[in-house]
């Protein structure tokens, strides 16, 4: 029983991370129907940035977010202006396909550039609280895992508040539902897309910190994008609260699968779940039918 709870608790921690990983992707996909598969690469770059800030400025990794988030907001801004803006006018399917292809190119470039700049060596940020735990009735909960869960809840909640409580957030949602009607409201739609893309990229900073505290290398980009896609589908496209749910579901299912299929096929369980959902409930487990 204790072992089961212990293992599931790790599932919750990685699930919260998966939720964070998918958040930016989901926002961008929901608002402008861009499938930004480069998101995993951006998270990987964020991890290196965290590493830098920690190494050179001796910041705590979580504190480094005050630099990392704005940096990635700017990166997102530049990427959108340079590459993605010109896709806005395309019809839906073209838009999706081209965004997928372009971001795929970015994924390749980023992971190879990172290998060039920092080698393929494994990296991690060591802190005084790495490995420290709270013992709760025999179940040991690592600080970093708990911090991940809190971070996920706070960030998802904050994004949710931003989208539902501010004028600009509502404008972004309006754009995601009806691009043209939004412009009739006086909303500068391309600007709303620009800002939400930049926010989506900035959100890569949060999982970036968690990954930096665990372990990473340039090739994690692909893995992270995969996880993000799985969560995106589990959550239901564009559902931000669903992202947290989908992430946790994936994390717990992966952890529990150890009992069912053994460690070797752990990753397969999540993927099979993903394919089944894609085939039978493409709107997501929680999503409504369009």
């Amino acid at each position: 029983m204790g072992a089961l709870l212990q293992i599931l608790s790790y599932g919750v921690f990685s699930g919260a991370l998966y939720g964070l990983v998918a958040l930016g992707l989901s926002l961008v996909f929901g608002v402008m129907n861009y499938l930004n598969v480069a998101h995993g690469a951006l998270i990987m770059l964020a991890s290196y940035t965290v590493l830098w800030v920690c190494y050179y400025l001796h910041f705590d990794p979580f504190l480094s977010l005050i630099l990392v988030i704005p940096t990635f907001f700017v990166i997102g801004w530049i990427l959108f202006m340079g590459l993605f803006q010109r896709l806005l006018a395309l019809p839906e399917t073209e838009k999706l396909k081209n965004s997928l292809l372009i971001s795929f190119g970015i994924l390749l470039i980023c992971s190879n550039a990172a290998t060039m700049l920092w080698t393929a060596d494994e990296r991690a940020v060591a802190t005084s609280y790495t490995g420290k735990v709270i013992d709760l009735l025999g179940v040991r909960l690592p600080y970093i895992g708990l911090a991940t869960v809190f971070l996920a809840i706070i960030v998802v909640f904050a994004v949710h508040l931003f989208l539902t409580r501010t004028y600009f957030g509502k404008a972004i949602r309006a754009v995601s539902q009806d691009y043209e009607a939004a412009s009739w409201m006086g909303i500068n739609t391309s600007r709303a897309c620009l800002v939400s893309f930049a926010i989506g990229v900035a959100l890569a900073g949060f999982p970036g910190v968690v990954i930096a505290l665990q372990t990473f290398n340039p090739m994690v980009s692909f893995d992270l994008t995969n996880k993000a896609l799985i969560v995106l589908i589990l959550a239901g496209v564009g559902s931000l609260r669903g992202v947290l749910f989908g992430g946790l579901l994936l994390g717990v299912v992966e952890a529990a699968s150890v009992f069912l299929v053994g460690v070797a096929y752990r990753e397969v369980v999540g993927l099979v779940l993903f394919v089944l959902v894609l085939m039978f409930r493409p709107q997501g487990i929680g999503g409504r039918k369009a």
Partner: protein
Amino acid sequence: MKSKLGIASFVLLMIFAPLLIKSEYLLNLLILICLYATLSHSWNILGGYCGQISLGHATFFGAGALTFRYLWLGGVSYYLALPAGALASLILAFAIGFPSFKMKGHYFSIGTLALAMIALITVQNLLPGVSFITEACLKEYSLLTIYYLAFGVGVATVAAVYALSRSKLGLALVSVREDEEAAEAIGINTFKYKVVAMSISTVIAGFAGGIFAFYCGTYYHYAPFELGWSFDPLLIAFIGGAGTVVGPVVGAVVFVLLKELFAASLGQVNVLIFGIVFIVTVLFLPKGLVGIAGIVRKKDRSART
């Protein structure tokens, strides 16, 4: 008539090429060009013509390689093992490929990617070891044989795609690509055509996989299942021109030669350059490099009239 002559002379030229160049290294490059052109065309039929962007072609490539390998190392002749690999690939398509059409549009893309990853992990788990070329098979191994096989399969593939592009079937595939709902509305059984495209595509991928397994003396069993074998044909098709007969061939030539030229002098930068070339192509050359020729010709024609 003239064009037939041109193609015939090209084929003859390529048949005698190994005698002319007499370099194992260049023969290697030619084999790679044929291999990539074949694989890329396999992707092109499904992705370029039918509009179903598969990110899971490695699965079918791998299935072909795996089957070929087992038969060939088990003593079956390569010319029997090669079609057997293609058949295995087709069977796999029936098992997992067609159900994946339940997923539409981008769901199909990411769904096939997931399937490819499942296949990769499964093969890694079941066959963690290396597939060694045996001494007996090594005797049968000759670059020249492989070249003619690869070239033959490549020419057959291009010919098949050419025939397809001019057939009713090709038209139906394009209509599925352009607007699936509209195609359905005018009575095209889109599922049927997608299945046909997938079948042809996987058979060709299986052949390509067999050639890889023949060509690569020794490798890890999972090597042909690696995701690169899904991404490379897509990159090649888009750079050359997806949905065209010539595009993947041009793409493969550019892909292999550029990589060869850059790899020596530029190292890792060559992958960056490739990524940038790819993005630029997607953004500005929706028809790929072949599109440039098209634009030039169009301008040419309008200037004349």
